[in-house]
C-alpha cells in the first residue's frame, strides 16, 4: 500500500513537472522535459513524445489506481475474504486486445514521422561531420545557398572549458561549460541541411537536441541525416556515443544565421582559409628557431596531448609518460613524428588534424621539455604525413 503512495507522489511530481515544466525552465533549456525543437520535424518528434507520454500516464493512472484501490480495500485487516476466481477468458482476451489497439494507434504517427525523418532528399546544403578522438571535423561539401563549398575546419572544446574541466582544477565554470567550441559551424535559417556523419577512429554520434538530429559517426561508413532550423540562434549538443576518455568533452555548436549573414560568413571564412593556407605553405619551407618551435609546440601540446600525457609529460593510467621516454629522447625523430602522424592503439592519429608546423613544433617541444633536453630541433620540412 505504502509503496504505491510513494509512487503516486512521484507520479504527481512528474505530472506537475510536465504541466509547469515550461514555466520552470531557465535559459533555453527545460530541466524536466524533452528539449523543444526549432525544426518542424523535431516538433513532430516532440509531439509524438508527449502523445506517448500521456498515453503512458493515463495507462499508469488506471492500472496503479486499480492496484491502489485493491491494496486499500482488499486488505485482510479490513476483514476481506479472498475471492475464489483465478481466471476469466473474456477479460484476458479484452486486456490483450486493448494494448494492441493502442499500439496500432501509436504506430501510425510514429511511422509518418519516421518516414519524414529519413527523407534526406532535396537538401540545400551538405556538411560532412567527421568524429575524431575527441573533436569534430567539418567539411562543407555542397551548397546551393551560398558559396561555402570547400570550407573545412576542426572544432574542439573551448579553451576556457578545457582548462576548467581538468581534474581538481577548481576553476569557475565558464558560460556554456562543456557546450562551447573554438569554431562553430554556421548554417542558414529555413534551409534543409544534410549532415553526413563518419569517423576517423571509433564510433561517435552527432547530436544537437534542439535540431532533433542524432546520427552515429562510424569509421569507414557514411551516414546521412538532416535538419532544418526555423529560427536564428546558437544550438548546442554533444557527442552521444562513448568514444573513449574524452567522450564528454567534444561538443557540437551550430550557429543558425539569416541567409544574408550566412553568405557573408561563407565568403569571409573562405578568404580566411585561403590566407591560412598561404601562410601554412610558406611555413612548411621556412626554417624556425628552437625558441619559436618550443613556444608553438607548448601550445599544440596543451591543446592536443596534455589530456592524456599530462602537463609534465608524466602520463598516467594507460597513457605512457613522455618525460624520459625512449620515443621522445633516444628514439629517432622520424619514429617520433610517425607515431604522432599515425597514432597507435588508444592514441588517435594526428596527421590530418595538425599542420606540418604544428607537428614539427610539438615534436621539438616533447624532445626538449621536462628535462628530456635532447637539443633536437625539428623543422616542418622534416614532417611527411
Amino acid at each position: 500500500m505504502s509503496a504505491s503512495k510513494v509512487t503516486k507522489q512521484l507520479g504527481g511530481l512528474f505530472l506537475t513537472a510536465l504541466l509547469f515544466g515550461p514555466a520552470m525552465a531557465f535559459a533555453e533549456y527545460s530541466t524536466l522535459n524533452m528539449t523543444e525543437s526549432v525544426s518542424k520535424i523535431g516538433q513532430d518528434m516532440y509531439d509524438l513524445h508527449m502523445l506517448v507520454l500521456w498515453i503512458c500516464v493515463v495507462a499508469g493512472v488506471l492500472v496503479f489506481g486499480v492496484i491502489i484501490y485493491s491494496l486499500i480495500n482488499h486488505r485482510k485487516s479490513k476483514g476481506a475474504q479472498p475471492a475464489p476466481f483465478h481466471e476469466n477468458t473474456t477479460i484476458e482476451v479484452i486486456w490483450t486486445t486493448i494494448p494492441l489497439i493502442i499500439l496500432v494507434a501509436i504506430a501510425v504517427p510514429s511511422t509518418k514521422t519516421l518516414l519524414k525523418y529519413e527523407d534526406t532528399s532535396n537538401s540545400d546544403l551538405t556538411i560532412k561531420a567527421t568524429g575524431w578522438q575527441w573533436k569534430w571535423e567539418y567539411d562543407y561539401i555542397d551548397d546551393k545557398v551560398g558559396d561555402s563549398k570547400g570550407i573545412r575546419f576542426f572544432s574542439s572544446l573551448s579553451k576556457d572549458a578545457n582548462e576548467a574541466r581538468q581534474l581538481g582544477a577548481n576553476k569557475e565554470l565558464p558560460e556554456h561549460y562543456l557546450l562551447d567550441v573554438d569554431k562553430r559551424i554556421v548554417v542558414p535559417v529555413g534551409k534543409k541541411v544534410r549532415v553526413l556523419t563518419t569517423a576517423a577512429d571509433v564510433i561517435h554520434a552527432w547530436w544537437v537536441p534542439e535540431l532533433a538530429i542524432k546520427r552515429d559517426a562510424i569509421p569507414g561508413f557514411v551516414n546521412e541525416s538532416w535538419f532544418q532550423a526555423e529560427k536564428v540562434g546558437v544550438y548546442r549538443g554533444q557527442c552521444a556515443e562513448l568514444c573513449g576518455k574524452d567522450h564528454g568533452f567534444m561538443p557540437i555548436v551550430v550557429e543558425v544565421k539569416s541567409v544574408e549573414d550566412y553568405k557573408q560568413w561563407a565568403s569571409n571564412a573562405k578568404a580566411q582559409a585561403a590566407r591560412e593556407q598561404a601562410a601554412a605553405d610558406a611555413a612548411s619551407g621556412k626554417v624556425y628557431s628552437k625558441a619559436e618551435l618550443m613556444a608553438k609546440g607548448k601550445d599544440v601540446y596543451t591543446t592536443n596531448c596534455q589530456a592524456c600525457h599530462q602537463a609534465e609529460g608524466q602520463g598516467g593510467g594507460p597513457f605512457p609518460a613522455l618525460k624520459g621516454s625512449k620515443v621522445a629522447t633516444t628514439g629517432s625523430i622520424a619514429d617520433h613524428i610517425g607515431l604522432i602522424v599515425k597514432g597507435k592503439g588508444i592514441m588517435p592519429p594526428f596527421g590530418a588534424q595538425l599542420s606540418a608546423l604544428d607537428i614539427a613544433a610539438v615534436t621539438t617541444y616533447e624532445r626538449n621539455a621536462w628535462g628530456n633536453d635532447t637539443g633536437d630541433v625539428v623543422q616542418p620540412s622534416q614532417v611527411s604525413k
Partner: protein
Amino acid sequence: MSEHHDAPTGIKRWLFTTNHKDIGTLYLWFSFIMLLTGGAMAMVIRAELLYPGMQVVDPNFFNMMTTMHGLIMVFGAIMPAMVGLANWLIPMMIGAPDMALPRMNNWSFWILPGAAILLVAPMFMGGDFLSGQGPAFGWTFYEPLSGQYGNLAFFVFAVHLLGFSSIMGSINIIATILNMRAPGMSLMKMPMFVWTWLITAFLLIAVMPVLAGVVTMMLTDKYFGTSFFDAAGGGDPVMFQHVFWFFGHPEVYIMILPAFGVVSQIIPTFARKKLFGYASMVYATAAIAFLSFIVWAHHMFTVGMPVAGELYFMYATVMIAVPTAVKVFNWTATMWKGAITFEIPMLWSIAFVFLFTIGGFTGLMLGLAPVDFQYHDTYFVVAHFHYVLVTGALFAIIGAFYYWVPKWTGNMYNETLAQIHFWVSLISVNILFFPQHFIGLAGMPRRIPDYAIQFADWNFWSSIGGFIFGLSQVLFLYIVIKTIKGGKKATDQVWESAEGLEWTVASPAPYHTFATPPEIK
C-alpha cells in the same frame, strides 16, 4: 539415502559440494559480494557527478567505473543471484532430491570466481595500484573502441568463462525440470518460478554462444589480424552491434523473467488467492522470450539502418508491450478481491509491480524509432534500464530473499530492520533514478564524467539518492548475516497461505530433501 557419507567439512565442503542447497548459497553469496563491489563503483560514479566540474577521478577512470559497474552488476550480481535462487528452489519446488547433474553444478559455480578475477584483474595492472588499465569502453564493449585497449584478452576470456558457467547452469536447470519432477507434476502444474526459469535457461543456451562468438571475433581482430569489425579490412563495426545485441536483448529478459517468476510466487501468498491467469502467464512468458530474439536492433536506431529495418524493429519492439501488460494485469487481478497482508516480501513485490511498470512504459517510449533519436544514449535510457533492473530484477531478488530465507535458515529476519531496509531503499532508489528521466530528456548524454551546468540540480539529487540507496544495502548485508546467525524460529509453513512443495519440508530445509518423491494430486 538421507544420511551422508564422509561429508567434508570446512572449506572442502564448499569446494567439493554437489548439493544444490550449498551451491545455491555459494551463488547467492558470490552475487552479494559482486553487488557490493559494483555498488561501490556506482558510488564513485555518483560522487564524480555530484557537482559539475571534475573533482574525484579522471575521465578514463570514470569510464572504467561505468564499464565495470555494468559488467559486474549484469554478469556478477543479477545473473548469479537468479541461478542461486534456481539452485535452492527448483529441486524443492518440483519435489526432486537435487539438480540433475550435481558435479557439473559444482563446476558451473566454481568457474565464476575465476571469471570475476580475470575481469577485474586489469584494473590492478600497470604502473601503480588502480592505475586505470581495466576495460573502459562501456559494458556494451562496442568495437572499434574496445579494440583500442590493451589487456583485451582478459576481458574476452572472462566472458568465455562466464558463458561456460551460464550454459552449464542452464543445461542443468533444463535437465532437472524436464526429468526430475515429482510424479503427477505436469508442466502446467509447475510453480511460475520454475516455468520462468525453464524459459530463461533456453534463452541462455541460445544466446551465450553468440556472446562467446562476438568476443572471439574481437580477440582475433585484436591479436590475429582479422578484420571482422574494421572497415579498412572489409569488416563492419555495425556488425559488432548486431551480433552483440542479438545476445544483449535476450540477456535483459534473462535477467527479468526469473524476477517475474519470483513475484508470481510471492503475490498469491500474501493476497491469499491463486495466481490469476496461470496459463496466460506461461504463454506471456514464452511470447516475451520469443519476441526478445527478433527486436535486437532497437538498441541501434541511430546507426543508420535502412528505413524498412527501422520500421520493422519498431513494430516488433512495441509488440512486447502486449505480453508484458498481460503480466501486470494478471498480478493486479491476483491482488483484486484478495485478503492482502503486507509482509516484507509482499512490500518488495508490490514495489516491483509499480516500478517495473514505469520501466516498461519508458521502454515503450524508447521503442518508437523517431522519438528514440532524441532519447538514445541519454540519461533517459539510464533511468529506463535501472527501473527495470534495479527496481525490477534486484527488488525481486531481495523480495525472494525475505520470502525464502526462513526456509533456508530456519530463522525469521528482524522485522524492524527489514522495514527500514525496504522503506529507505524504496524512497532513495526513486530519488536516485527518477530525476535521471528529466536530465536525459533535457539532453544529458550517458557515460560522461562531467556535464553542462543546467543538469547540475537533478544530478545532485540523483547522487544523494544513490548514496542513501548504497548505504541501505549495507544494512541489508547486516540483516542477512543476522538472520543466518539467529532470530525467531520459522515454522515449516512459514507464511500462512504459502503453497508449494518447498513449504512442506522442515525449516531450515534438511540437507537432503525429497529423497523419496512426493505424490502430486
